[in-house]
C-alpha cells in the first residue's frame, strides 16, 4: 500500500479526475473531501464490505429453491 503524509488542506490526486483532500483532523478522526466523477461510487469501506458479503451469501442459494416453492405466504 502506498502511504503518503499530508497536512490539513493538502490533497492527493488519483488519476486525472479524483482528488482526496484532508479537510480537518481532530484526534483520531480525519475529515476527507472527495472530488470524483459522478459515475464513481464512493462508500465507507465497512458498509461496502457488508453489502459485498451479503451479496456473496445471497448468491449461495443452491438447493434452496425447494424452500421457496414450499413457502406459503400468509
Amino acid at each position, binding site marked *: 500500500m502506498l502511504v503518503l503524509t499530508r497536512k490539513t488542506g493538502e490533497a492527493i490526486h488519483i488519476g486525472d479526475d479524483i482528488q482526496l483532500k484532508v479537510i480537518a483532523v481532530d484526534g483520531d478522526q480525519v475529515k476527507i473531501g472527495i472530488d470524483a466523477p459522478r459515475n464513481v461510487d464512493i462508500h465507507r469501506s465497512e458498509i461496502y464490505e457488508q453489502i459485498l458479503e451479503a451479496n456473496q451469501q445471497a*448468491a449461495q442459494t443452491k438447493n434452496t429453491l425447494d424452500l421457496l416453492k414450499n413457502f406459503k405466504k400468509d
Partner: protein
Amino acid sequence: MNVSTVYFGEVTVDSSKIIQFENGLPGFNDAKEFVLIDIEGNPTFQVLQSIGKEDLAFVVTNPFLIYSNYEFDADDQALEKLKLETNEHLVVKCILTLEKPFEQSTINLKAPIIINAQTRQAKQIVLKEDKFHTKHPIQQGGE
C-alpha cells in the same frame, strides 16, 4: 435467446427483458447482464439470474410486499444515471439470503436494486439510512 440458470435449467429469455448492470453488483463486478425469472407457484419471489454466469443467481422480491412502509431516498446520482427522474419507470427489488427453515431468511434493505423498467438499466445502490441493514427478517412483524 437461451440462458442457463441455477434453478430452472435452460430457459428461453426474450432478449428485450435483459437487465443491464453497468458496473455489476458489489462482489460480482463483472456480472453485468441479468434476467428476472418468475418462480412458478410463488408470485412473491423472483430469481435474478446472471446471463453468462450460470451459477450466479439471487432470489429477490418486491420489498414493499414484506415491509409495506419501506421508504428511502436514493441519491440523485444513481437516479440520474438510470434516468429515473420520476418514479414512473422505477422498479425496486431487494435480495434475499435464504436460510433453512425458510422463515429465517433475511432481506437486504440496505442495498436495494433499482431498475428503470423502460431502459432496463439497473444498479444496486447503498442507502445512507442507518436504520437499514443487510439482514432484516422476512417474517412479518419481525424487526
